[in-house]
């Protein structure tokens, strides 16, 4: 009897040491009847690498399953719809921005997820729904990170005569800050910034934008710098243009600017003023077979827990979406610099911020986009 117990104990130890498909650690329960492989869709580049290091690798080590990476997030919405119509869903988990998640949820293409039963609670026992708080902008969406769209500017522009931009309206001030700037080729964020600098108080921006006159006003403000703007459609363009000296300032995602400034050591600085927060996170495609869905939910509970979200900030300068992760954010894995001051959510950087208004843009995006594109084409 005693021997039997010892044998069983040894077997259990062996299982821990040599993980098999059902191997478990203390924090990760076994996954019964789960698929042995999953396809995760994300954005590629540095962002996918950070997820790979923080989530996929540890999960693969713990479970021994295989994670296949697909870098199709940019076309995820259209592809998911096509897959759904063809009734052949090849993706298990998809990384999308919040606006796309809301769209997918509206279209019935994403599974509803209950944070409190499907996700891990914070270490102190706070339920996930409270830990994520207002970041849960859609019932289908589990956010991972907060990123921001903000401006970077060159620090060695001779024409500026030693002045440096301190607030967002420097973008519209071509007198004091001459030179080309880059803006994203879409109305979102640009029209808000335009109205702010046209004297609209921050809390009235969306009320003004909901009227046709408000849109005209924003476009009129943008018109004042139209000839100085290079329009980008991929996040990598602004960093490249800044590094080439093609532009003196430009908007892009804060993580891209971080790599220009800290990794490539370019003469560029961040203008955090009026940065717009947005979220990036997971959705589970609707209609997955039972075994694959179980595997995804198992992975999701692991990859969105407090520690894992904090781990991701070691590899990229985006803020974790859980409140409980913030104190755990440490140093950059290779550069060794403290990451907290580079987070968009850091109090020093977040003195004046905007949160992407999802409801507003879901309603008005088509309308304002048509006007914006018509204005752009003229």
């Amino acid at each position, binding site marked *: 009897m005693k021997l039997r117990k010892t044998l069983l104990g040894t077997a259990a130890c062996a299982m821990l040491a040599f993980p098999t498909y059902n191997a478990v650690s203390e924090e990760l329960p076994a996954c019964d009847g789960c698929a042995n492989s999953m396809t995760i869709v994300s954005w590629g580049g540095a962002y996918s690498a950070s997820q790979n290091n923080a989530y996929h690798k540890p999960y693969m080590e713990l479970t021994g399953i295989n994670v296949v990476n697909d870098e199709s997030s940019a076309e995820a919405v*259209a592809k998911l719809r096509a897959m759904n119509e063809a009734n052949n869903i090849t993706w298990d988990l998809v990384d999308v921005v919040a606006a796309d998640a809301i769209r997918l949820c509206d279209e019935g293409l994403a599974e509803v997820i209950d944070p409190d039963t499907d996700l891990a609670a914070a270490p102190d026992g706070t339920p996930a729904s409270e830990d994520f708080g207002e970041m849960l902008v859609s019932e289908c969406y589990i956010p991972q990170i907060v990123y921001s769209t903000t401006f970077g500017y060159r620090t060695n522009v001779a024409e500026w005569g030693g002045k440096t931009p301190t607030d967002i309206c420097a973008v519209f001030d071509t007198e004091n800050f001459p030179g080309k700037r880059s803006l994203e080729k879409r109305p979102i964020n640009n029209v808000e910034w335009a109205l702010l600098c046209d004297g609209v108080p921050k809390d009235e921006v969306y009320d003004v934008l909901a009227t046709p006159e408000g849109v005209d006003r924003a476009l009129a403000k943008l018109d004042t710098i139209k000839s100085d703007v290079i*329009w980008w459609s991929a996040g990598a363009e602004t960093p490249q243009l800044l590094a080439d000296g093609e532009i003196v300032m430009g908007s892009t995602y804060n993580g891209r600017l971080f790599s220009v400034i800290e990794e490539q050591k370019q003469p560029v600085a961040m203008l955090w003023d009026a940065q717009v927060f947005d979220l990036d996170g997971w959705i589970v495609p609707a209609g997955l077979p039972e075994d694959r869905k179980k595997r995804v939910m198992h992975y999701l509970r692991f990859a969105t827990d407090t520690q894992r979200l904090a781990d991701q900030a070691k590899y990229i300068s985006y803020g974790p979406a859980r409140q409980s992760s913030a104190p755990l954010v440490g140093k950059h894995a290779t550069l060794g610099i403290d990451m907290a001051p580079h987070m968009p959510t850091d109090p020093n950087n977040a003195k004046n911020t905007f949160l992407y208004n999802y409801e507003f843009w879901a*309603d008005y995006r088509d309308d304002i986009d048509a006007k914006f594109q018509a204005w752009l084409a003229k």
Partner: protein
Amino acid sequence: MSVQAAPDRGPITTQDGIPLKVSLARALRREKLRALLLIAPLLLFVVFSFVIPIADMMLRSVDNALVPETLPRTTEALATWDPESGNLPDEPVFAALHADLLVAVEEKTHTRLGTRLNYENSGMSSLFRSTGRKVERMDEGQYTAQFIDAHKDWGNLETWRVIKRFSGNITPGYFLNAVDAERTSEGLRMKPDNERIYLFLFGRTFYLSMVITVSCLLLGYPVAYLLANLPLRHSNLLMILVLLPFWTSLLVRTSAWKVLLQQYGVINDFLVFIGVVDEAGRLVMINNQTGTIIAMTHILLPFMILPLYSVMKTISPSYVRAAKSLGATDWTAFWKIYFPQSVPGIGAGAVLVFILAIGYYITPELVGGTDGVFISNRIAYHVSSSLNWGLAAALGVILLGAVLILFYVYDKIVGIDNVKLG
């Protein structure tokens, strides 16, 4: 003897007595069937991967089944409502809406419907999303008041006009949108000036495609001429030079143009260095139409050169020699003798380049800035970003139609038989 007797024995038969006609027809049918079997894989492939998807996409441009399918009772009840009456629909309509939405919320289709109707009227998306959350908690009776209480837009006449206008299975809405028109309660009209974009983009797409085709021809014709007339060892080298970019990735070539053309790029730096332009006068050659024309001309050039070359290769040099020996100048010999013979190549190359150009999307997106983008960029936006596939399909159908019309005109003027690929 037997030859004379033949007519008397009735129709000519084969050895086994079957009439020759029948036997021949049988053999021919078998031949045809065999030929059909041989091409069957290709035929099926084309049908499944080309004809069916295109037909499906064309149907999407008018398909509106989502509205009557999601709101069957409401659309039926709305049939008797007069949108011009100035009154909200009656209580039975609201009751029908309640019944429909209960089912829709259960199946999670109400938000899809909201997205669909939001293309026509901003605000419908949140109207359906927020009403969907409240509809299950509604009490029986007094639906009009409860709905207006749930969202004030249910008390707005325009909301109901839009639902009524789009309650059919088929809608012209996407096509109207694609030509910058709209149907309002006052009837058909063009959209306000600041929202018109598609007709303008169609025009620009065709105009720029023609400019690109002409510049490909101007640059490609001399190259093709050299290719066809130089001694083999020189022309082979030249051929490799023509084909080399053809084998290079499109994105690489486009990015290379970015490096060359940008304001602090290679060309501008060189011009500043030799003093042709000063520091402030650096040329803007990218992120505008010039960028699109230069990059696309380069990318499409082989499609012009190759058909030209294969036609020129077949032109015998003796004709030009004969013309010259009869006293023609170099120019006359070229223009009267050589050029007309190369027209089929020009036709083939021009059609090929033009068709490829109007569908181009990635190069204009990368180097076109704002005034160098094509209609295909908007189609791509509606397919992948706004998910308005109906509008994307309508734009695509119009583009297809315009190309077919141009083809027809081309056939009338030049003649489609006068196109040769070699």
